[in-house]
């Protein structure tokens, strides 16, 4: 291998990337878009949920409770209903996701026993949203109860209400939103890097075939391994830049705490990039059209990484057979490492197993990639 030739190819490739809009968009814009989309997409935060109310009592108390709902940022009252039939129709027609029904004896029971109940009908076709909405409803009712107890509503309540009221456990809903984001965003970084890295390199060989430059290139004394190294160097630089961007974005924009060392982060990220770029190069060497190569690249990175890397869906909850399959998904190891680095602050020593798995993966992919590209037309 000759450094001179590797350098010539790396330089040429860098110039081509700079002049190719498609590559630039993938390299610079896609990570940003994906960070925003996936970062916010995993948010469990629900606001201004369309809500219908059915007040069967129509008392001062019931109206005060509904005012609590109205002033909450989580609910938006879209209509006032007159009977249950309307409630069903409103849910069926998707006019609202939740119905708050106040019974006829709401105030009666409140003053008699100090405890009353409110019915909440939620559209559980999206069970996640329904669960969260019910949680929010709980908290609104709790707030109402404690206001009532403190006399904040301007009319008397029995002292016994003081002992009931705020149920702190229900507030966990709010924290969970934050928890899930901390849990998922490190995985999002892996997902983006796998996609961007493989997509960029998947185009690199097929572009030469499509533009007819390959025939000239393989008529020169350049070695396949020199072509591979030369072509991957600029993409490695871009990949590292994207990784830094995503990680900074995760920590400073989404406020995901980072507890590991920077050295471990860079080392494992570089390792992951080698695997990803090598896979992209392998695809590129096998498929001679740019469109075909990029589609295969998306297929082998996006799908397995999003479903089987454990970035959002825990691997230990998958059926045993699928769990076995995840060992082939290279992103799995990096996701494991990133989560450990971010959330647990693990050191490299704790991460020996996934790190070694990635080293092995990188070695196999690099070996294959160096051979995949043949300097022959037949």
């Amino acid at each position, binding site marked *: 291998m000759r450094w*001179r030739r590797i350098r010539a190819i790396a330089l040429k490739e860098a110039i081509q990337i700079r002049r190719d809009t498609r590559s630039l968009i993938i390299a610079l814009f896609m990570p940003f878009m994906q960070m925003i989309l996936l970062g916010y997409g995993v948010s469990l935060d629900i606001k201004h949920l369309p809500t219908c109310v059915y007040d069967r009592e129509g008392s001062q108390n019931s109206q005060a409770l509904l005012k609590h709902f109205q002033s909450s940022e989580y609910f938006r009252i879209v209509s006032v209903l007159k009977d249950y039939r309307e409630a069903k129709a409103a849910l069926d027609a998707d006019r609202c996701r939740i119905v708050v029904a106040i019974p006829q004896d709401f105030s009666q029971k409140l003053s008699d026993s100090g405890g009353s109940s409110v019915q909440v009908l939620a559209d559980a076709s999206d069970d996640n949203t329904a669960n969260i909405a019910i949680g929010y409803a709980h908290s609104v009712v709790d707030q109402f109860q404690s206001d009532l107890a403190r006399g904040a509503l301007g009319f008397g309540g029995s002292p016994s209400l003081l002992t009931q009221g705020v149920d702190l456990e229900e507030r966990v809903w709010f924290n969970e939103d934050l928890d899930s984001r901390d849990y998922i965003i490190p995985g999002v970084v892996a997902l983006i890097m796998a996609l961007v890295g493989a997509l960029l390199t998947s185009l690199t060989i097929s572009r030469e075939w499509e533009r007819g430059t390959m025939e*000239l290139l393989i008529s*020169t004394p350049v070695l396949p391994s020199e072509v591979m190294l030369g072509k991957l160097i600029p993409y490695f630089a871009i990949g590292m830049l994207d990784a830094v961007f995503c990680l900074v974005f995760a920590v400073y924009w989404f406020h995901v705490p980072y507890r590991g060392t920077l050295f471990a982060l860079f080392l494992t990220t570089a390792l992951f990039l080698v695997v990803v770029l090598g896979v992209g190069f392998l695809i590129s060497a096998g498929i001679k059209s740019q469109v075909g190569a990029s589609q295969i690249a998306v297929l082998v990175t996006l799908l397995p990484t999003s479903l089987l890397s454990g970035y959002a869906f825990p691997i230990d909850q998958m059926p045993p057979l699928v769990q076995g399959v995840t060992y082939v998904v290279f992103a799995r190891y990096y996701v494991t490492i990133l989560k450990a680095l971010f959330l647990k602050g693990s050191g490299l020593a704790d991460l020996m197993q996934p790190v070694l798995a990635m080293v092995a993966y990188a070695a196999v992919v690099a070996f294959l990639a160096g051979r995949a590209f043949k300097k022959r037309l037949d």
Partner: protein
Amino acid sequence: MSAVLPEKTDKAGERTEPVLVAEGLVKRFGNFTAVDHVSFRVDKGTIIGFLGPNGAGKSTIIRMLCGLLTPTEGRAFVSGTDVAKDPETVRQHIGYMSQKFSLYGDLTVMENLRFFGGIYRVPRKVLPERIRFAVTMAGLDGRENALVSTLAGGWKQRLALGCAILHRPPVLFLDEPTSGVDPESRRRFWDLIHALSGEGVTIVVSTHYMDEAEYCDLLALINRGQLLALESPTALKKRNLGGTLLSIECADIGKALHLLEGQPGLLDLAAFGNAVHALIDPARTTPEQLFALLSGAHVPVDHIVPIEPSIDDIFVRMVGEARESQEGEPGRRAG
């Protein structure tokens, strides 16, 4: 089929080893035989032209000589190196320019030259000077920073040649280098080829422009993967066609071809622009008889004169002979 060449001597009068040797080259793609037992030897400084219609196998032979394609049978040597055994050594010593334009369009003139300079590991000391030479040769002075995709065909082609000779290869393969280029650029390009040949570079060039054949030292006529002849243009033109060649200029070429076909004494027939070239056996027919035949069928004839055969005519005749010997029937073809 093989052809034996007279031994050639270099300027000092010594016998030289052939730079290029093909021994029974065969290339099959599935059931299709693209190249059928082709053998030849080419000496240093020779321009050998591969002539033949599209799909005759010219490119396939060149690609096998460069090591881009593996021969199904036979062997090829470049400067004494077996191409199949040591393709990388061969690639160090050749320049290749292909039919499809293949520099990087999204790189500038300079960037392309620097890239190939790096790939061929041209010594850094001489690289600037050689790049300068290539730019001037291509006529691109002052346009060094233009993107190659914005250049017109003739410039692109000369720049591609400049890139192919940056490392001063002793052997140059040019696969239809002039296709799609204007006549003036083609002429300029051939001037460059001759200059290189004068410096001792052996050049293999393929073309389907018959007029370019005159520029070569040696012509390889190729049809359906077979080497029909390997001679100098002069020797080729002196070939006895076995009859008299007539040029018949008339109004309705199509009708004339139809009428003449199968006439007694007619050996071969082909359309050339606005004329029909007919090869006749003077013992069995005469120009007068043909004139009468055409006039009688209401095809007005402007001229009917004997002509010296061009390389085109020779080629058409040889293709016809090859087919006759294969299929056992005479026929006509358009040239």
